[in-house]
């Protein structure tokens, strides 16, 4: 873990990567806060001549933003919940199957991923509407889970496979039932992978546009609202950028909260 940077080249490389990742975010930020004269011209200014927070005001007060944010958060946490609730038992079973059988199941899992989202979106939407769940966060979450679940399950299979079967065998001999061995040994040791799964499921829903726009056109999630805003809303592109900035805040918060659990050396000391 102690990968100490040794020379200047290392810092330069790191700097390039940081610029590459952070520059677009910087652009979004300055577009959101610059006066129109800075943006809508050839060679827009990289440093705003003055700062305006009016777009944030538009976003927060013109759109009933809290309601849309709530729908997005609701859907994202539900997707995380559904993916964990179904993905953990499925992945654990797959990880303890004979290798050959598990490959077959995993290929089967990815069938929904093989069809473009917009195409599979229609039958999924039809089913959701048939259940009377259109324009609800639950409907969005169920639809999004059908796409996210295979990917999350696959990640969890990897997490459970990294826990040696020897440990749950040991727990069984120590007197634990199958369920106790899973809850007290396999599950805590797979937490890193599970947190990754939670974040990815959450992010998938948070960013997801196609299914959300089909299933919940009136109660838009935030990405759908941004899109609507760019095409027909008040404030135009700068306001959309202000949306994006606000959209980032919960993501950063979630990653910061869970990052201390994203350790890679949890298995140290188990065997030998």
């Amino acid at each position, binding site marked *: 873990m102690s990968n100490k940077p040794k020379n200047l080249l290392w810092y330069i490389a790191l700097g390039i990567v940081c610029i590459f990742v952070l520059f677009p975010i910087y652009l979004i930020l300055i577009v959101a806060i610059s006066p129109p004269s800075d943006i809508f011209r050839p060679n827009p200014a990289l440093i705003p001549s003055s700062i305006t927070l009016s777009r944030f005001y538009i976003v927060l007060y013109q759109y009933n933003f809290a309601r849309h944010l709530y729908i997005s958060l609701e859907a994202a946490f539900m997707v995380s919940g559904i993916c964990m609730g179904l993905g953990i038992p499925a992945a654990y079973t797959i990880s303890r199957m004979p290798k050959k059988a598990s490959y077959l199941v995993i290929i089967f899992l990815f069938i929904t991923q093989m069809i473009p989202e917009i195409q599979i979106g229609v039958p999924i939407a039809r089913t959701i509407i048939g259940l009377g769940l259109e324009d609800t966060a639950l409907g969005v979450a169920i639809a999004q889970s059908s796409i996210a679940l295979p990917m999350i399950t696959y990640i969890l299979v990897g997490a459970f496979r990294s826990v040696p079967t020897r440990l749950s065998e040991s*727990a069984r*001999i*120590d*007197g634990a039932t199958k369920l106790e061995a899973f809850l007290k040994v396999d599950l805590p040791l797979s937490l890193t992978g599970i947190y990754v799964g939670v974040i990815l499921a959450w992010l998938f829903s948070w960013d997801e546009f196609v299914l959300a726009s089909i299933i919940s056109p009136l109660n838009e999630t935030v990405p759908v609202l941004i899109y609507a805003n760019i095409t027909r809303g008040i404030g135009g592109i700068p306001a959309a950028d202000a949306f994006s900035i606000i959209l980032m805040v919960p993501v950063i918060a979630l990653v910061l909260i869970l990052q201390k659990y994203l350790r890679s050396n949890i298995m140290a*000391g188990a065997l030998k």
Partner: protein
Amino acid sequence: MSELILENVKLKIGEKELLKNVNLTVKDKDFYVFLGPSGCGKTTTLRVIAGLMKETSGKITIDGEDISNLPPNKRQMSLVFQDYALYPHKTVFENISFPLRIAHKSIQEIREKVKEVSSFLSIEPILGKKPSSISGGERQRVAIARALIKEPKILLMDEPLSNLDAKLRDVVRFELKRIHRESGITTIYVTHDQLEAMTLGTNMAVMNSGEIVQTGSPMDIFENPKNTLVASFIGSPPMNIFSEIKESGIVHIENVTSIGIRPRAISTSKPKSMENTVKFKAKVNGINILGNEALVQGDLMGEHIYFYIYRNEFSSITEGKYADLYVDMNMIYLFDENKELKGRMANTETEQIQE
């Protein structure tokens, strides 16, 4: 009392017969060793006893109670795995107390038992540490402590010393003997190391390709190996086996195709009386001096022969030259064409012996 009996235990996975027909009786307070080359089924037998694998047919009983259909958590056994299988997310204390916590014992009782077992194994100072920050020898002790704490009917050990370095292995071997003596717990121990089997076992079963070849006390098996396989597996260096004695024409005995001589039974000094003594001439290939003695490799009847010489004999033997070897006839094992032991040379009609 805890007596374990395996009756006609067979295990087949697909077409592979992992256990052919295992019958054995482990008596109360035994230290029973399964010895055999890797892949012989000794670990599989252990896993079947523990309930981690289900036998295809056969019966396992403890004190007359059939446990064949019990899951591992109901069998009241402990298992020390080869690689310890400590729970890495738990401290040493939590690892050791895990079997008691699962059994919902009171905190008071857990504390007392952990204290008792950790002082027995001198691991009190590391109780608060995680398995990743203790040494291999300490992990071994923790694994044993976790196995002992629930006072199992039978303690199972799967090659527990094979991950330790040679020096530590000697220490732990004596330690295991002490643990068995003081706890009096019925133990089944799997190893491929004949030294561990000889020194630890009160009884042992030599296994090969899914079958038990021979059972008995270590000395009994050492003295009367059932066939050449057992003979060459027990003792270090192994027994010298000559399988082409007919072709060599040196010894001819009715119905005997192979003879075996233990390295320690060979002497280079002429005994006072040649009665009951066989003399061989072997070409010396190499001498490994070990201090007060030396291990010699020679050629006899087209095969290598190993024997020891003492310090006072070092000068009498030269590499590349022939040496006279004297063996008491009673120390020469005779094997028939099925490689089964027929007896010792002294008790058999010997038709012709050539030098």
